[in-house]
């Protein structure tokens, strides 16, 4: 028997948050999503707002359990996935 899919918390910040229209949500990712890049492709297909937010997904940054990740990194068992534009602090 396959394990139940992990429920992940997705967090959106700055203009990505504005475009998707939500701050956070809980989702179970489909089995086809294994890398950060897969995740961004999947998100892009979730409707007009997501298509708009993820149109240029190469610039988007992702953190897995609060650590920066590259687009080819595996998502693994990360529970908290944050998606945001390049940072402008300091």
């Amino acid at each position: 028997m396959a394990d139940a899919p992990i429920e992940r918390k997705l967090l959106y910040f700055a203009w990505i948050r504005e475009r998707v229209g939500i701050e956070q949500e809980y989702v179970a990712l489909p089995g086809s999503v294994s890398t950060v890049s897969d995740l961004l492709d999947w998100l892009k297909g979730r409707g007009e707002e997501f298509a708009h937010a993820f149109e240029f997904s190469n610039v988007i940054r992702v953190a897995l359990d609060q650590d920066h990740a590259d687009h080819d990194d595996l998502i693994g068992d990360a529970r908290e996935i944050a998606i945001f534009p390049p940072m402008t602090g300091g």
Partner: protein
Amino acid sequence: MLKVRVQEDDFDTTTEVAALTHGRTDIGAVATFTGLCRGEGETLSALELEHYPGMAAKQIETAAKAAMERWPIDGMTIIHRHGRIEPGEQIVLVIAASRHRDAAFDGARYVMDFLKTDAPFWKKERRVDGTDAGWVEAKEADDKARERWSNAP
């Protein structure tokens, strides 16, 4: 000794330097960097700093620990504000204390350079008339896709 705070309230540099050096006789150099909100002529009324709670402090701590391993730094205090900040107000403080000045200068600069690219904060500009002037573009943005995103209305 490392102290990192992410807060909405303003900070007082003199108080923070005194807290870092209190009772210490081994420190010979304290370098401080303060980042302020710059007005853009008469048009900018405020910055609104969004942040990712938890990760923001964690990334600053990572940078500070790396600096403290790299140079002989005896203490650091880093404070980064979030929320609404008006021109002339303080945004960020980095204090590095060491036996000698080189480590203090280098450590403070290292942490600031890291903060700019890796600490999850985002600045939105608000105009004097209250309208949204968009998100500040990341300076390392050099590819067309990124520019296009950042300049989008």
